[in-house]
Each structure stands twice: as structure tokens, then as C-alpha cells.
């Protein structure tokens, strides 16, 4: 009952190492020759051989270094990151900075139109952009579950790198932890971001005034519905892709066209309704929305109808809400629509004085109602 087999992985490793030929062999003793060869082996660029992440990759030793250099540095390569220092030293050039963080726990990790990687970059870029800053630097923290496929990690870091390039930001520092199987869901990513406030604008709820216009930068809910359907549990199919995108360019276009921008927020978890409630409460105003003006794709409408949810609460990852001086609303929308990410931008409502802290909706049917914060959320882990 004992059969014979060979250990193929070992034969491959041997063949690879044979490539390290001895220079200056003549000059050295046999032991020294071997030791020199080893030093050359040690200096090779680290390469991950495992197909899955193991706890050793999180233990801080050689395996961690291999993971960091073989995957993360490889994907995000830049001189600041490559020092692998405790902190990245940055000289952005002027003083006012924006600083933000978000953890990404989306499930599934890969979905039509994106994955956790570009989500993690775009999401943090967008928080900086809607704060009026030019996004510059990201810090990336990974929490990996033991057993996570290295190929998936490579795919995620590749999207992050591509998204960072697209957004003009650099991943300058990072961190990796590996937790036991069953203590995470494959891969969680945290990104923190630093941006520079170059423009003289000051944004904030304090600037919001009755009469201001409420603008949304594009069709809402694509991301949330896409991810929900991608989980496969609902057995619903639709031709939808996530709207994940970096909004800094679109924001710049808006700020150029309308200096009277009061504040912006990206409408992520909780959707446009949540953002509007936050604005109404922070600014102590009423927000009045005209349902008929809110851009929603038919497939989003269809999926929401099937599931009995309201698109106003569904997350986007590439849309923002802006409050703009009413007099500049038209200029603002014109500028947004000129940009590829803002083609469907629309004035969806206005700011009123009363009742403070409340969002009101003029329904498409011609009625009125309150749009409150949602208590729970039917959509599991969309960001």
C-alpha cells in the first residue's frame, strides 16, 4: 500500500537556484564559494512561492518581508515606500492638509466594475477630494486571513496600483497583519489618505444657506446594487457595474466653475439620503429634494423594486453630493456634465430654512414626505 511519489516543488526550487552561477570561483575556498553564492541568493528580489497566505506572512520575519517586497512594494513602487521606514516622510509643499481613513470589508472582494482594491483607493481619494483637497498620499493597511490566495492579493494590489495611478496618488507607507483562518473574510484593506488644500475655498456645513442648490454628480446606487447582486445570494442578475471612480478631477472641475460650493460629500454607505440628512443636521437647514430629478439607472430601480428598498439609501462609490450657491447651480452642472464622470449630474433639490435637520422629498408622484436616516441597512458589506 506504499506508493512512490516525488516532491515536484523541491525539484523546481533546485532548478531555479542552479541559475546562481559562481563568479570568481577560483579565488575562494570551497566553503567561501558556497557562502558567496548564498549571499547572492539572499539578495535576489523576494518572490512569494506559497499560493496561500500563511500566518508566517504576518509574523514580521522573512515571510513578511517577502510578502511586503514581493507584493506590496512591487505593486506600489515609489521611493518613499521603498525605504520601508516606520513612517513616510512627506513634503507636500503647503500647509493646509486633509486627512482621512476608511476600512474596506466589501464582500465579495471582486465584483463587476471593480474590487476591494480600487474601492480602497478611490474611496479615500474621494473623501479627500470632497474635502477640497488634492489627494496626494495613501497609507495602506492589510488584514489578511490565513489561507488567502496570493493570486487574489496580487490582483487586489494591482487594482490599487492602477487606481492610485489614475488618481495621481502614491501609496507611501503600509502595514500587513495576518490573522487565523476564520478571523477575517479573506482580505480587509484600510487606506488612510493625506491631501493638500491648494485652493482658497473653505468648505463646511457652516456655509450652507437657504436657496443653495443640491447637486448630485451622477446616477445613484449602481455600486450598492452591483455588490449586493454579486454576492449571489439573491439570485438576481442585472447588467450593472460599480460606479467606483476617483472624483478629484470632477471636484476640481466643479470648484473651477462654481466658487460658491458650500460643501461636498461622497455618497457612500447609506447613500444620498444619508448624506443629505447629515448635511441638514450639520447645517441646521431643511433639504428639499425633487425625486423626479434624481438620476437612477433603470436596472437599479428594478433591483430596488424587487427587494423593496429605496435607491436613495443605496451606496455609490463614485458619486458626490454638492451644495452650491443657487446662483451658480447652472454653471456647476454644466461644468460637471462636461467631465466624463459627471455626464448625468443634476440639480436634485434646494436648501430651505425650515424644518431644520430634516430632508423632505417632493415625490415624483407629486406628494411630499420626509426622508429620514435609515435604521438598519438591507445591504451587507458594500464597502
Amino acid at each position: 500500500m506504499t506508493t512512490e511519489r516525488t516532491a515536484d516543488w523541491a525539484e523546481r526550487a533546485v532548478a531555479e537556484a542552479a541559475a546562481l552561477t559562481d563568479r570568481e570561483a577560483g579565488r575562494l575556498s570551497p566553503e567561501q564559494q558556497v557562502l558567496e553564492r548564498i549571499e547572492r541568493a539572499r539578495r535576489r528580489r523576494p518572490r512569494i512561492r506559497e499560493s496561500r497566505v500563511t500566518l508566517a506572512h504576518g509574523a514580521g520575519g522573512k515571510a513578511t518581508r517577502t510578502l511586503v517586497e514581493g507584493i506590496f512594494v512591487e505593486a506600489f513602487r515609489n521611493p518613499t515606500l521603498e525605504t520601508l521606514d516606520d513612517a513616510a516622510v512627506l513634503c507636500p509643499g503647503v500647509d493646509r492638509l486633509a486627512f482621512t481613513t476608511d476600512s474596506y470589508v466589501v464582500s465579495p472582494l471582486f465584483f463587476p466594475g471593480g474590487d476591494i482594491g480600487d474601492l480602497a483607493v478611490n474611496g479615500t481619494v474621494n473623501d479627500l477630494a470632497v474635502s477640497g483637497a488634492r489627494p496626494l498620499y495613501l497609507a495602506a493597511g492589510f488584514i489578511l486571513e490565513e489561507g488567502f490566495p496570493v493570486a487574489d492579493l496580487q490582483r487586489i494590489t494591482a487594482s490599487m496600483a492602477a487606481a492610485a495611478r489614475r488618481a495621481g496618488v502614491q501609496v507611501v507607507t503600509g502595514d500587513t497583519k495576518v490573522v487565523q483562518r476564520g478571523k477575517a473574510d479573506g482580505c480587509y484593506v484600510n487606506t488612510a489618505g493625506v491631501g493638500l488644500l491648494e485652493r482658497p475655498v473653505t468648505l463646511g456645513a457652516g456655509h450652507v444657506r437657504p436657496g443653495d442648490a443640491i447637486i448630485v454628480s451622477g446616477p445613484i446606487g449602481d455600486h450598492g446594487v452591483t455588490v449586493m447582486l454579486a454576492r449571489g445570494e439573491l439570485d438576481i442578475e442585472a447588467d450593472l457595474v460599480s460606479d467606483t471612480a476617483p472624483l478629484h478631477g470632477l471636484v476640481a472641475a466643479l470648484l473651477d466653475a462654481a466658487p460658491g460650493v458650500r460643501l461636498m460629500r461622497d455618497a457612500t454607505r447609506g447613500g444620498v439620503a444619508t448624506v443629505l440628512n447629515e448635511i441638514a443636521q450639520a447645517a441646521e437647514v431643511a433639504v428639499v429634494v425633487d425625486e423626479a430629478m434624481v438620476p437612477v439607472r433603470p436596472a437599479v430601480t428594478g433591483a430596488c423594486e424587487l427587494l423593496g428598498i429605496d435607491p436613495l439609501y443605496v451606496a455609490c462609490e463614485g458619486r458626490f453630493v454638492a451644495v452650491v450657491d443657487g446662483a451658480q447651480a447652472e454653471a456647476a452642472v454644466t461644468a460637471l456634465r462636461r467631465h466624463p464622470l459627471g455626464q448625468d449630474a443634476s440639480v436634485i433639490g434646494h436648501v430651505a430654512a425650515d424644518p431644520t435637520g430634516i430632508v423632505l422629498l417632493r415625490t415624483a408622484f407629486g406628494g411630499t414626505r420626509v426622508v429620514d436616516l435609515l435604521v438598519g441597512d438591507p445591504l451587507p458589506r458594500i464597502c
Partner: protein
Amino acid sequence: MCLGIPGEIVEIKAGRDDLAIVDVVGVRRAINIGLLGQDQVGIGDWVLVHVGFAMSKIDETEAAATLALLNGLGQAYTDELQALAESDIT
């Protein structure tokens, strides 16, 4: 809870005649049509979907009739407005 959504049957599953795919503005889901007669519904029919089951076939003639009635009521209203406007002129 009693949420019912109209959807169009776009496919009936081969070998499982109680399973159909419905389309709601481009969104598709498999639903059970076992509560309707097998010969009662076919591709292109609209059904009312509730918790994954088709509850009834939507009667397009009746739907059109309701709309016509609503239009009629609307027309009556418009006529009235018209009348009002005309009476105003005089």
C-alpha cells in the same frame, strides 16, 4: 411584506416547468411559477412576483382598461378645466 412586483417572463427553465426567469427593467431573477397553471403563463406574459413566487398573471386587457378609465377621468377633468377656462373668457 406583501410587496408584489410585476415582471415579464423571459424564460421557462428546461426540465423544471415550475421555474421561470422574470425580467424587471433589465433585472432578472428565477422565480417559481408553480402557483399558476402550467399552460396559463408563457414567455412574454407578465406576472406579479412575491417572495420568489408568481402570484398571478397580469391581465393586460384589464390593465389597459384601468388606464383608459384613468385617462377618462383625466379627460373629464381637463374638459372641466377647459370649460372653466372658456367660461372665464366669456
